């Protein structure tokens, strides 16, 4: 059995090698040193150990005196041969214990003691009889021989026991080396950071191998003193699969470990019960050892080994401890790494979430329509939560919801735009009821129409829903569902970021829509106001009604987006005359055309009732001219309480908005005003002309009466007086003188009257026209007047009179007020206009508004529809420019 020490030494070194190649971890392996080997060899060659030799000597020192004393006491009963044999026995004993050397010494000492105490002469070292000498020598020789034999035997036996001991220690060393290698392999795994599950499996394998266990498993203790199998090797590991969850109970060693936190063993599992009992029963495990796995001072779990044979060696716990330490380290490492991974995952998740939120926020901030934001949000939520499906729905007023966006595998079940009514236990229903996030962890046991029809076919196991709140009001809901497992805690909070963004997007969109709407409304109002203002400006400027009517038709058509707009006057016979027409309409409605509207035309109804009327759809009614007009609105035009006409709009498309009549009314009021104004103005103008003409006629009549009556009589009187004067006798000179005085006085009166008459009306104007009249004026002026008169024809009396008075008044001003030294008068007939200008070189400063003369001129000129402009800068002369229409309006 023993073999050369070098063999197993090298064998050990060989088993060491593979581990050395694999690992980078230094694990001390205890190996015999060369010095120890030498000592062992020496001891083997020198025979018994020093200790045994010393023990032999001690035995000799104790036994020999003791034997001597005993024999001396019983000397009478024991003869010399017996005594010699007893001493021989003692020597053999010494030889058995101490080997040859102490035995030989003891043999000599025994011979001396025998000679001294028992061979006569007693108590003397001499020997009386020669036979006794022979006996002593024989005794020494026999003792020596016996000692030699016994010592040899002892040495042989010791050598055998040493060999056995060496064999055992070699086994131990091999086991130790295997154990070290196993530890190193495990340590390498730990150091490589392989998953804890792999480490557990490797440890279980190694421990099982090292301890020769039939079944090895590693369990993790739960907070409720339960144990979960994390690794299982050995016989039929499927009997105790990984993941098995059980509660350790005595007599299982694991239970003791759990209780004490220290290694424990159980020698008899025959009484074991429960899950573990069944398992050990099926596997035939009879005893086991369990060692705690400590992780950072806490009992994390245990390694269990079981055997079908007898109990494990006593050092099993110790040997398992080395592994449990490694397992502890591995677990601590793994947990640290897991935490690191977890925090890294958490960071990545957070970053993803932030990026997703940022993307959505960018969309929201860019004002992308909410309809585009919804799918983006659904996508992001699905991505962030890792859900199978996600959708966004709007809560309608009736409590149903409308799907606005969805992503994931529910194409057929919930199309966008579909409406449905969530019922418990759906998470959505809970959100709608509470206004708070909700979840349903497991739909597998749920029931309900929607669950049966949609949730289960989709394979959704659990879902989370979060409310979308817009300006404090529950607007809708985002929901995400997964097919397996559930959502992590905090999912609701993570969804909240998105729901807030969605809420903002919706609020923005609504605000924007309202803004757009009000902006449109404002723009519409502004356009309408501008149109009304333009018309009002025309009205105020007093442009002819025909122009106002046309402008109103244009503006109304534009403001109301009508295809056709018309303004018609109601004639006395009940027909209407088209006054203005805008749009793409056939010739029957051209300006000037007359026709008789009949119901159901809106125009006819409006004229009949005097109120706005509309026809939503002419297609229903036959008989209307085929204008392609589908619907129309007509509003009456009332002028000073009298129905004057109607304005109507038509469109080929849908009916006009409800406020159309109201909007048209603003224009019809303006039209009424314009027409009334125009009428009034025409009347006013006519009356002004009439007044001026009447005044002129009156003056002309006065002048004529003066001329034909008073003046003639006075002249006749004057002539008669002169005759009378000539008939007075020469001897009555005083009478002659008196009559002459009266005649002179009378002539002066005639002259005065003539001046007055001329002031009332210039006779020359009637007689000779404007040219001669103006030339007369010029001749009579106090300052030189340059005349430039180009009037080939006589103008109407009012025109000539006005022109005459303008020049007359201007020359009077130039002389009286402007102190001019020169004036220039130009009159030119130009087509239908008479241009008149009077310029002087006076002091200027005439006030066009002031001065009764100028105002009178202005009234006269304007009454004729003409214009007058007075430029009179101070110190730069005065220019009066008048334009008179030759044909009055």
């Amino acid at each position, binding site marked *: 059995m023993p073999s050369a020490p070098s063999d197993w030494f090298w064998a050990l070194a060989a088993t060491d090698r593979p581990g050395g190649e694999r690992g980078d971890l230094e694990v001390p392996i205890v190996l015999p040193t060369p010095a120890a080997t030498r000592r062992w060899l020496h001891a083997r060659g020198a025979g018994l150990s020093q200790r045994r030799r010393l023990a032999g000597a001690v035995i000799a020192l104790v036994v020999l005196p003791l034997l001597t004393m005993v024999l001396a006491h019983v000397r009478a009963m024991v003869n010399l041969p017996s005594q010699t044999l007893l001493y021989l026995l003692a020597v053999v004993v010494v030889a058995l214990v101490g080997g040859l050397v102490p035995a030989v010494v003891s043999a000599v000492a025994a011979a001396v003691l025998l000679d001294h105490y028992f061979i006569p002469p007693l108590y003397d070292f001499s020997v009386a009889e020669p036979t006794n000498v022979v006996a002593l020598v024989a005794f020494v020789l026999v003792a020596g021989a016996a000692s030699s034999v016994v010592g040899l035997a002892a040495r042989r036996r010791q050598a055998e026991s040493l060999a056995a001991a060496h064999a055992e220690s070699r086994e131990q060393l091999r086991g130790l080396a295997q154990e070290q290698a196993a530890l190193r392999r495990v340590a390498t795994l730990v150091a490589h950071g392989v998953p804890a599950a792999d480490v557990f499996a490797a440890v279980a394998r190694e421990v099982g191998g090292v301890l020769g266990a039939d079944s090895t498993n590693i369990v993790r203790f739960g907070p409720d003193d339960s144990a979960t199998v994390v690794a299982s090797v050995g016989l039929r590991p499927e009997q105790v699969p990984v993941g098995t969850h059980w509660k350790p109970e005595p007599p299982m060693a694991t239970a003791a470990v759990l209780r004490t936190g220290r290694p424990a063993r159980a020698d008899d599992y025959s009484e074991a019960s429960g899950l573990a009992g069944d398992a050990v029963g099926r596997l035939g495990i009879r005893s086991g050892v369990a060692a705690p796995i400590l992780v950072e001072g806490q009992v994390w779990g245990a390694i269990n080994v079981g055997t079908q044979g007898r109990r494990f060696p006593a050092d099993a716990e110790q040997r398992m401890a080395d592994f449990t330490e490694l397992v502890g380290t591995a677990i601590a490492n793994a947990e640290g790494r897991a935490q690191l991974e977890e925090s890294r995952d958490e960071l990545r998740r957070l970053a993803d979430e932030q990026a997703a939120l940022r993307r959505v926020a960018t969309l929201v901030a860019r004002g992308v329509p909410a309809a585009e934001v919804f799918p983006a949000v659904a996508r992001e939520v699905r991505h962030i939560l890792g859900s199978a499906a996600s959708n966004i729905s709007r809560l309608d007023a009736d409590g149903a919801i409308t799907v606005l966006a969805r992503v994931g595998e529910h194409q057929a079940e919930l199309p966008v735009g579909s409406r449905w009514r969530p019922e418990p236990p759906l998470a959505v229903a809970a959100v709608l009821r509470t206004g708070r996030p909700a979840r349903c962890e497991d739909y597998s046991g749920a029931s309900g129409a929607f669950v049966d029809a949609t949730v289960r076919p989709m394979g959704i196991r659990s879902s989370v829903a979060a409310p979308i709140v817009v300006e404090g009001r529950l607007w809708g809901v985002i929901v995400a569902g997964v097919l397996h497992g559930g959502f992590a805690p905090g999912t609701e909070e993570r969804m909240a970021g998105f729901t807030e963004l969605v809420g903002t997007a919706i609020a923005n969109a609504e605000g924007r829509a309202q803004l757009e709407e009000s902006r449109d409304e404002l723009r519409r109002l502004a356009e309408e106001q501008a149109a009304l203002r333009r018309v009002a400006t025309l009205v105020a400027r007093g442009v002819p009604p025909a122009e106002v009517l046309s402008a109103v038709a244009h503006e109304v058509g534009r403001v109301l987006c009508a295809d056709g707009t018309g303004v018609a006057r109601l004639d006395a016979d009940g027909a209407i005359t088209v006054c203005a027409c805008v749009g793409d309409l056939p010739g029957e409605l051209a300006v000037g055309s007359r026709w008789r509207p009949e119901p159901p035309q809106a125009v006819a109804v409006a004229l009949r009732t005097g109120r706005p009327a509309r026809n939503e759809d002419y297609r229903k009614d036959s008989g209307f001219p085929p204008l392609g007009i589908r619907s129309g609105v007509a509003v009456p035009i009332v002028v000073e309480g009298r129905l004057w006409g109607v304005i109507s709009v038509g469109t080929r498309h849908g009916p006009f908005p409800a406020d159309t009549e109201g909007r048209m009314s603003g224009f019809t009021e303006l039209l009424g005003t314009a027409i009334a104004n125009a009428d009034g103005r025409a009347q006013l103008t006519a009356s002004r002309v009439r007044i001026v003409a009447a005044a002129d006629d009156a003056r002309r009549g006065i002048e004529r009466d003066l*001329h034909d009556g008073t003046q003639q009589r006075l002249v006749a009187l004057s002539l008669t007086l002169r*005759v009378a004067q000539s008939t007075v006798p020469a001897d009555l000179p005083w009478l002659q003188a008196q009559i002459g005085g009266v005649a002179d006085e009378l002539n002066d009166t005639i002259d005065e009257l003539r001046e007055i008459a001329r002031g009332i009306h210039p006779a020359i104007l009637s007689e000779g026209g404007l040219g001669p009249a103006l030339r007369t004026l010029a001749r009579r002026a106090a300052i030189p007047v340059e005349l430039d008169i180009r009037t080939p024809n006589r103008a109407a009396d009012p025109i000539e009179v006005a022109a005459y008075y303008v020049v007359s008044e201007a020359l009077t001003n130039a002389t009286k007020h402007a102190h001019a030294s020169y004036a220039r008068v130009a009159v030119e007939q130009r087509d239908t206009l008479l241009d008149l200008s009077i310029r002087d070189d006076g002091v200027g400063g005439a006030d066009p508004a002031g001065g009764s003369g100028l105002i009178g001129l202005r009234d006269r000129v304007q009454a004729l529809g003409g214009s007058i402009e007075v430029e009179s800068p101070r110190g730069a002369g005065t220019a009066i420019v008048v334009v008179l229409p030759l044909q009055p309006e």
Partner: protein
Amino acid sequence: MLSCLIVDDNPRFLAAARDLLEREGVTVVGVASTSAEALQAVAALRPDVTLLDIDLGGESGFDLAARLHRDAGLTPSRVILISTHAEQDYAELIGASPVVGFVSKSALSADAIRDLLERDGDGECPLPINGPRGT
């Protein structure tokens, strides 16, 4: 004796003028109140001078003067326009008319007529177009 025809629509003036002129040695061969009468009288009476009122009711003395001149042929009657208006008022029309001159009615006298006729006989321009201001 200077024969004279007076054309005026005012009978009161006709009477006064006739009376005055007769006394001053002018033979008033006739009077007329209308253009038609005047034309007949001139043709029949052949007066040396015709005193013609500018305002003949509705008719114009200037028109009548022109007709007298045109109808009378080579030896027209010499015409003196008369009026209650100032001469200056009608200066332009008077100048354009085939007449000897103008005498204001209130200044009518045989001397005034003779002066005008003599001045006309001298071939002088009877009146400046733009004469000095006066009645």
